[in-house]
């Protein structure tokens, strides 16, 4: 387990900035004097309290399976992939949100894209190809994706037209159970 290098940090922040507005709150000091840091173990990036990260140094790299919140994975080409486990953090600081109706929740959780007919509400002035958090009508985060159309364009779209490309959904907890924490 080690802290991230400068390019790694940049890549991670770059990806997070697609979905979140205010990232400074992520690394802001807490009331008890502690703060959150990013740690890398087995090419997975963890968002963890510094005190916990310091405690975890007593466990060897191989023996350490996970700690804190797993944000995603750094690929061998140097890119960063967000995992579904990062959803609570993303949903808290979301830039754009999309609420889907009950009839659209199941298809989304099974891995399909969001069609216009399933959208209940949508953030105004959302450009296309920007990160969006998908929530149910009860404000429960279901996953995240990338908008296929801007809000204005989506208004003219037919009901079966795709408005959001799925990136990750809560169904992955079951579907990708084996690969989420160990490759």
């Amino acid at each position, binding site marked *: 387990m*080690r802290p991230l*290098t*400068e390019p790694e940090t940049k890549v991670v*922040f*770059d990806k997070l*900035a697609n979905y979140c507005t205010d*990232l400074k709150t992520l*690394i802001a000091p807490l009331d008890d004097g502690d703060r959150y840091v990013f740690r890398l173990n087995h090419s997975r990036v963890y968002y963890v309290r510094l005190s916990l990260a310091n405690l975890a140094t007593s466990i060897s790299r191989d023996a350490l399976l996970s700690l804190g919140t797993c944000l995603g994975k750094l690929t061998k080409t140097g890119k960063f992939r967000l995992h579904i486990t990062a959803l609570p953090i993303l949903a808290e600081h979301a830039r754009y949100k999309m609420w889907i109706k009950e009839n659209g929740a199941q298809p989304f959780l099974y891995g399909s894209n969001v069609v216009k007919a399933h959208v209940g509400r949508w953030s105004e*002035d959302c450009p296309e*190809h920007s990160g969006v958090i998908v929530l149910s009508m009860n404000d429960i985060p279901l996953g995240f994706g990338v908008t296929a159309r801007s809000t204005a364009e989506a208004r003219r779209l037919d009901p079966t037209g795709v408005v959001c490309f799925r990136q990750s959904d809560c169904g992955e907890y079951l579907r990708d159970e084996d690969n989420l924490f160990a490759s």
Partner: protein
Amino acid sequence: MGTTKTIKNKHSTKHAANGSGVKGSKQAKYGDKGDGVIKAKKNHLSKAPIPGQGVKGRPKISDILKKRKKRVYSEKELGIPELNMITPVGVTKPKGKKKGKVFVDDRESMTTILALVQAEKEGQIESKMIKARQLEEIREARRAEADSKEEERKAQFEETKDSIRKKRKRPRGGKDSDTNGFKAFMAEEQAKASRPDKTKKKKVSFAPE
């Protein structure tokens, strides 16, 4: 001949006799025969003035040659294409740099990176929004233009339709209505045919007795 000497250091005796302890030294080669006097050979050469040496202040030619030979060119000066070198382009590491990764763990440096990334992302999103708005405006303008054109066309169509209707309402015998002319002709014929029937009086005649 008959006596043998024990020599402790044969090298020292063999070559020390020549004056120097080195095997291939000049003294060993030319030999001074143990008298300690070195005869200078080629005295004429040493006495003759060397052309470059005569003038003071000028560097010797040999010195210049030595200097030239010593010059080492760097890779940039040689102008060798980068791909043609022995070491691949990516492998060469800058000298004097510390080995290993530089971690970012303190809050200040993280905040700096974060601010940079966020500013960049905001800029991107802003430009995307502006672009989208401009495109939307263009689309709106095009749609308005298309609508106006459509209306214009419809109005023209209605006008032509009206004009045709008016033309039909004109009295018969128009130059362009052949069918009308034909119908009129037929009607006249019919009228002619029916007229004698009406004028004829019924007559009953009997054969004369």
